[in-house]
């Protein structure tokens, strides 16, 4: 059955048209990733209108290709100009740019390209193996659990999205509120329409996403008139050829870093709200800590390029695991992918892989193939990508704004979507100006209906709210939502306040309770073992900290927040 589905999926993806679209997608993603100020999420958002008229597997394969291309595109600008193309490539510049300046740009690029490829492939393997397993766990979820999962996704995104969690949570709540405008899905009653036909129909959420993210980002990019007229990268002529053989040799010698960083990337991606900008810093930090010569980091060594590039490409595999197995987007880009599924009438949920196996396997296969295309294109089109970074920002902004208009109209063929684009463009711009993160709002918009629908289902089954606190999965998500809400305070005080030494052990003790409940109720031995491991880890950390006399020095770490 699985083989049959895989073969069918291959048939869907390996058509000439799909393959060409994937090539275009990867090239588009690489270009978008190479341009500082043009984020991967924006590239994926702008691809969405094109995929509307395609079959779901073709549309999603194209979007996956943009995603894979975008993740790798940032390294070129970072290595050659010192300006990271995307936040996911920030750590790559720490050693990539010095190495290029030392006269080895070809090796630096080779290390980046091949590390990206390895990271992508390792996360693709993890995606194929872990997503179906996690989906099996997801099948246990009842409406209470699913509602709490959405709340957890929003809380952790808010806590990782900016310096002020209150602003993050407000953005998430605003996103949920935006989704309530129009007729409600359960009873068909008008909400917040104020007598307007346009509001009665609700906001098309793709127009909302493009307005919030792409429109507002472009206006931020051209805010400064002088910078808007400058080339994105004013570096002089760059002559570089990727040194593939030398790079492969270096990576083979450092395979431990590649594997560890890819795992860091994948598991960061699985966590809702955390993406490439967290993963590349984490992997760089881990590589530095485990190195025999940490003092050489930042001077242009191979480890400093391999670690961040392996991890940032592995992130999307992890984010896709969460999206496909649980129906929860791992980050903004997978939130848009989830939107793409919805416009093709595919509702993501834990049953997605079992109900739509061909589509699910098409995404897996597209992810694999896109990594090979990325490797090929990045090697062959290096000069094109460097030339693209010479474009003046105002050209890009004007042309993309024009395209936004056309793309958004094409979604539903109604003028009102264009006004939605404008209003949400203004809202997104104001939110950026006032320091509100957009990621929680976007997740709120995407997950709003899912949360309400599950709340309604839960209430229809049992009018009491007790199951939200007594069902193991629901309690588990509630506990980790509370700890993730406290995470910004923990991060700000880590290494300075004593209470932060108790955060991790207490999180382990608290998470152990629902795990033990699951083991007790279902007679599940593996979950019992996990509960014992979690509680033992908590006790071990606590004992270690007690033995070190509650010393704070050893517990400072990298700042974790999505850019």
């Amino acid at each position, binding site marked *: 059955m699985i083989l049959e589905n895989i073969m069918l999926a291959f048939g869907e993806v390996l058509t000439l048209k799909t393959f060409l679209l994937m090539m275009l997608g990867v090239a588009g993603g690489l270009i978008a990733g190479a341009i500082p100020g043009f984020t991967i999420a924006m590239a994926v958002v702008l691809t969405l209108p*094109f995929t*509307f*008229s395609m079959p779901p597997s073709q549309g999603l394969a194209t979007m996956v290709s943009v995603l894979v291309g975008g993740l790798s595109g940032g390294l070129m600008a970072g290595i050659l100009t010192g300006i990271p193309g995307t936040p996911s490539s920030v750590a790559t510049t720490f050693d990539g740019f010095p190495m290029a300046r030392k006269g080895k740009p070809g090796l630096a690029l080779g290390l980046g390209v091949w590390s990206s490829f390895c990271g992508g492939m390792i996360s693709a393997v993890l995606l194929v193996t872990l997503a179906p397993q996690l989906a099996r766990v997801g099948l246990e979820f009842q409406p209470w659990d699913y509602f709490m999962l959405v709340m957890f996704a929003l809380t952790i995104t808010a806590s990782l999205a900016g*310096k*002020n969690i*209150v*602003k993050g*949570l*407000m953005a998430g*709540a*605003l996103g*949920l*509120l935006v989704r*309530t405008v129009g007729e*409600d899905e*359960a*009873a068909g*009653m*008008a*909400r*917040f329409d*104020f007598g307007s036909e346009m509001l009665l129909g609700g906001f098309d959420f793709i127009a909302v996403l493009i307005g919030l993210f792409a429109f507002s980002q*472009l*206006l*931020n990019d*051209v*805010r*400064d*008139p002088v910078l*808007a*007229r400058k080339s994105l990268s004013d570096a002089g002529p760059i002559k570089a050829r990727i040194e593939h053989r030398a790079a492969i040799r270096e990576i083979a010698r450092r395979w431990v870093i590649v594997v560890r960083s890819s795992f860091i990337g994948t598991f960061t991606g699985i966590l809702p709200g955390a993406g490439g900008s967290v993963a590349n810093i984490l992997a760089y930090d881990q590589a530095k800590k485990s190195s025999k010569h940490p003092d050489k980091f930042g001077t242009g060594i191979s480890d400093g390029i391999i670690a961040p590039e392996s991890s940032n490409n592995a992130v999307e595999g992890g984010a896709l695991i969460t999206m496909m197995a649980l129906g929860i987007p791992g980050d903004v880009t997978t939130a848009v992918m989830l939107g793409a599924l919805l416009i093709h009438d595919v509702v993501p949920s834990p049953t997605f892989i079992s109900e739509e196996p061909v589509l699910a396997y098409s995404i897996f296969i597209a992810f694999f193939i896109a990594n090979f295309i990325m490797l090929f294109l990045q090697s062959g089109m290096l000069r094109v990508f460097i030339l693209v970074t010479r474009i*003046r920002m*105002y*050209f890009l*902004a*004007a*042309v993309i*704004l*024009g*395209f936004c*208009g*056309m793309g958004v*109209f*094409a979604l539903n*063929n109604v*003028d009102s979507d*264009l*006004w939605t684009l*404008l209003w949400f*463009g*203004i809202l997104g711009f104001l939110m*950026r100006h*006032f*320091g509100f993160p957009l990621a929680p709002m976007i997740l709120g918009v995407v997950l709003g209906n899912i949360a*309400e629908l599950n*709340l*309604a289902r839960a*209430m*229809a089954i049992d*009018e009491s709210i007790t199951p939200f606190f007594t069902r193991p999965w629901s309690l588990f998500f509630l506990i980790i939502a509370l700890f993730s809400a406290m995470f910004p305070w923990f991060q700000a005080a880590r290494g300075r306040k004593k209470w932060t030494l108790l955060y991790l052990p207490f999180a382990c003790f608290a998470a152990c309770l629902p795990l033990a409940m699951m083991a007790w109720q279902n007679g599940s031995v593996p979950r019992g073992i996990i509960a014992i491991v979690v509680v033992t880890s908590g006790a071990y950390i606590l004992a270690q900290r007690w033995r070190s006399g509650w010393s704070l020095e050893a517990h400072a770490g990298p700042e974790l927040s999505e850019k």
Partner: protein
Amino acid sequence: MRYMNRDAWLAVFLLLFTGFMFWASFDIREPDYGVLAPSVWPRVILALFGFLSVIFLVQSLRAGPGAAVEGEEDRPSSVKGYLAYWRNPIICFGLFAAYLALLPVLGMLLDGMAFVFVLLCALGGWSARDMAIHAAVAVVTVGGMWSLFTFGLNVLLPTGILVPGL
């Protein structure tokens, strides 16, 4: 008033917005069927939003009037300064609104070209050379995109009354 900073004013505005939306939620009709009334979920969200706005207000007031506000560094303080600082975004929003207003008259193709051309000139300059480049970019990019949607993806884009069919 002397305790207020920009974030505090924003928090007050958000509290007023919450109050207004909460009041509007009483206009939502309650059907006789279903357990979860259509007004419950929006009210839960608004209650949470209001609570967070209060925390935001308290945070802002505790920071004091002189506190540096996130994203406010190096910003002008006069109205003229603000207009100069935000010139480009204001132009973009204004031209996009004009683009939407003129859509029924010019149609997507001509309106799109006009929008991109004027925006490029407004952001990049009005010299003869610039205008020639901007016109070429507008025609090629919007024309290309319009052709892709119309002929490649079979999307019916709006036509104008000025030049029917385009």
